[in-house]
């Protein structure tokens, strides 16, 4: 703890069990004005913000993942707990606000008592008192405060003025300028009986601070049901408090039903998928066209020299290829947010836990895997909710196999080559097959890795699935929206610099050495000349040198160095494959769509130096298979490194997936040829 810590802005840490209203309170206190930070070397992410100026309180506030105990149960929880004791640049927080769901008092006071025993300066924020009221119960904050020896306030993060008492208390504590207490590490109660004694002391407090509402205070509809409340003794209070939400049970009768539950699950998943692809498509096209427009304006402005090319192709198109996925990410996270806030996501995880556990995953792997179909980067971040380290690493491991949206343009081009335009529906079937194939592939990989888990993913802790199913609630739009915006920002910040950086490297490799090739200009439009020039330039570039190195790998799969260059380019980001093919095959954008003219040149392309056709049914099928499996996204590699805390997993992913992709491509191409399909 640094000496001058007292001179710094005070720091408030928000701590609480999952579903205790912590994030709602955090958002209400800090508004949109927060940033997420990653602790150095740790995978746990914190939201860090300033208390809104309208509260007139100069303080920083930090939100951490929900914990139910100061005794960590998983590596992630360990980091969360450790960090509570030592926040970078701050040391220990000046005040800990502990959120406690008033209707879950005994469970949530468990953590509070641990915090108090560890000497933290705790203020309890009692949430969900309305739910308690519906149960016909009243809580006395004064009495709770006396019993625990810390301040207790009722808050409602959804109502702004309800936060004033909390702010006042914090202010008073700051003014008192008492010496900052130094928290001690909480030791696990070694004995089960000690733990039970701990719990019963909490239960005693619970029964002392809760009392039945007087008749007049009862909400009308509850009144009849609780007619005998007058006779209530301690037991009755407990019984009421421990009654579960009836509406939730009723909804669960359908949503967790053996058959209906599964039908709804698949329905909800289908709607999610369809929305990610269909609703996002027009927006993605818009972003794409917008950046295309800006890029061509840039060429006009800066000329066709290296500067113009760098700005147009390197920077602007690079930025575009980052931002083009934002619509998909926003839609995915909006849906996930609604599902989570309503309480369904926990049910989905419960439904799918059993099959996933068979392949070494966990019900909690479900959300990250689902997100993987939009983009692997936020998906890997979502894997943090999995408490078991091995299961989390395995989830991160297979996420790149979920066919992310960057593969769509590639699939679209390759399918268009195989399928005649008049029978587009076959294309649809083929695309679905590719998706089913990618899911099957990931299942097989997970199962195989799981078999070798001791060698590939070390550090085994026992697998478990313990998940609270929160009561169904109406999702709060502002919470869902702010979380969505936050997730999109994380994607842009994490993936952005990497994709952009690589786009620049790729630009350099394809542009230099800067030769000005002589080309036939007669009979060509100006635009065509530019295209021909860049194609010629490419075949003399450093990238082509690279491509020629991998020629020996391309020959066995019926391809040549030009496709090799595109594949290398696709390692930066998959969708680059299409644009680099366009460059290489001298596509001239005339009146036809780019895809049309690309397909035309692809159909006539010959393998370099031979008379054999380059693109055939066999080689195109091979390429599709390659794209399903190959690990070709540098941003994913970078995030995988960050999330797994080392190079081991990302390198294994690159090697295993790329090798598998190549072998399967080889088998597909030569297998098809063997049965007479070329």
């Amino acid at each position: 703890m640094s000496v001058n810590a007292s001179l710094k802005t005070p720091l408030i840490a928000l701590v609480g069990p999952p579903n205790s209203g912590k994030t709602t309170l955090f958002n209400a206190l800090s508004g949109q004005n927060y940033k997420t930070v990653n602790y150095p070397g740790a995978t746990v992410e914190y939201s860090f913000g300033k208390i809104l100026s309208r509260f007139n309180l100069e303080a920083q506030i930090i939100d951490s993942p929900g914990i139910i105990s100061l005794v960590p149960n998983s590596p992630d929880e360990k980091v969360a707990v450790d960090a509570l004791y030592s926040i970078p640049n701050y040391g220990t927080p000046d005040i800990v606000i502990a959120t406690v769901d008033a209707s879950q008092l005994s469970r949530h006071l468990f953590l509070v008592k641990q915090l108090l025993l560890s000497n933290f300066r705790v203020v309890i924020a009692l949430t969900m008192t309305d739910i308690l009221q519906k149960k016909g119960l009243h809580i006395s904050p004064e009495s709770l405060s006396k019993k625990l020896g810390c301040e207790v306030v009722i808050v409602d993060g959804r109502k702004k003025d309800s936060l004033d008492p909390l702010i006042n208390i914090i202010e008073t504590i700051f003014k008192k300028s008492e010496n900052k207490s130094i928290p001690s590490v909480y030791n696990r109660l070694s004995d089960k009986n000690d733990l039970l004694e701990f719990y019963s002391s909490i239960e005693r407090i619970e029964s002392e601070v809760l009392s039945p509402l007087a008749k007049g205070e009862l909400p009308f509809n509850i009144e009849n049901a609780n007619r005998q409340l007058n006779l209530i003794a301690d037991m009755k209070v407990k019984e009421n408090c421990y009654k579960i939400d009836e509406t939730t049970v009723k909804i669960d009768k359908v949503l967790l039903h053996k058959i209906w539950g599964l039908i709804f699950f698949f329905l909800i998943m289908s709607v999610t998928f369809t929305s990610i692809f269909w609703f996002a498509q027009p927006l993605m096209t818009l972003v794409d066209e917008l950046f295309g427009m800006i890029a061509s304006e840039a060429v006009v402005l800066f000329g066709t020299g290296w500067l113009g090319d760098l700005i147009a192709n390197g920077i602007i198109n690079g930025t575009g290829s980052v931002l083009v996925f934002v619509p998909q990410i926003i839609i995915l996270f909006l849906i996930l947010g609604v599902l989570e806030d309503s309480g369904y996501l926990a049910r989905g995880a419960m439904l799918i836990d059993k099959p996933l556990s068979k392949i070494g995953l966990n019900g909690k792997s479900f959300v990250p895997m689902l997100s993987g179909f939009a983009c692997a980067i936020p998906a890997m971040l979502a894997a943090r909710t999995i408490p078991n380290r091995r299961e989390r690493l395995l989830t991160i491991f297979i996420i790149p196999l979920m066919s992310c949206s960057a593969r769509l343009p590639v699939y679209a081009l390759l399918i268009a080559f195989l399928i005649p335009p008049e029978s587009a529906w076959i294309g649809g079937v083929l695309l679905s097959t590719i998706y089913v194939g990618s899911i099957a592939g990931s299942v097989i990989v997970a199962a195989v890795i799981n078999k070798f888990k001791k060698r590939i993913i070390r550090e085994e802790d026992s697998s478990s699935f313990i998940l609270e199913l929160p009561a169904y609630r109406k999702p709060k739009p502002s919470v869902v929206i702010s979380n969505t915006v936050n997730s999109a920002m994380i994607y842009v910040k994490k993936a952005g610099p990497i994709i952009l950086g690589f786009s620049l490297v790729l630009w350099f490799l394809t542009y230099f050495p800067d030769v000005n090739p002589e080309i036939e200009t007669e009979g060509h439009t100006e635009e065509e000349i530019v295209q021909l020039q860049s194609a010629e330039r490419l075949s003399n570039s450093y990238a082509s040198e690279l491509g020629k190195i991998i020629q020996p790998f391309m020959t066995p799969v019926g391809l040549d160095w030009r496709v090799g260059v595109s594949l290398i380019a696709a390692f930066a980001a998959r969708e680059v494959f299409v644009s680099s093919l366009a460059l290489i095959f001298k596509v001239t954008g005339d009146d036809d769509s780019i895809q049309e003219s690309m397909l035309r040149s692809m159909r006539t392309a010959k393998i370099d130096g031979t008379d054999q056709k380059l693109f055939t049914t066999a080689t195109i099928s091979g390429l599709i298979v390659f794209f399903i499996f190959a690990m070709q996204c540098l941003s994913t590699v970078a995030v995988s490194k960050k999330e797994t805390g080392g190079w081991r997993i990302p390198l294994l992913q690159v090697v295993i997936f790329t090798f598998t992709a190549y072998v399967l491509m080889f088998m597909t191409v030569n297998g098809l040829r063997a049965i007479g399909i070329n």
Partner: protein
Amino acid sequence: MRTAADLNFGERVVIQDIDSNHPSCIRILEIGFTPGQEIELINKSFFNDPLAFSVRGTLIAIRKEEASCIQIS
């Protein structure tokens, strides 16, 4: 010994003990499954696993494997 994994729907029972040899023992206790608490099996997943119990006014889903360390009568 019957455990929570053997419960039938709608049966309300009181927890007798938690098997302290089970690796999830402490977490099961911490989350609220303590001796003396009343629990009820509310839902089963499609594959009969995990199971969702009502305990202390909330629903908690746990695997059968974990439920088997919760001893009832």
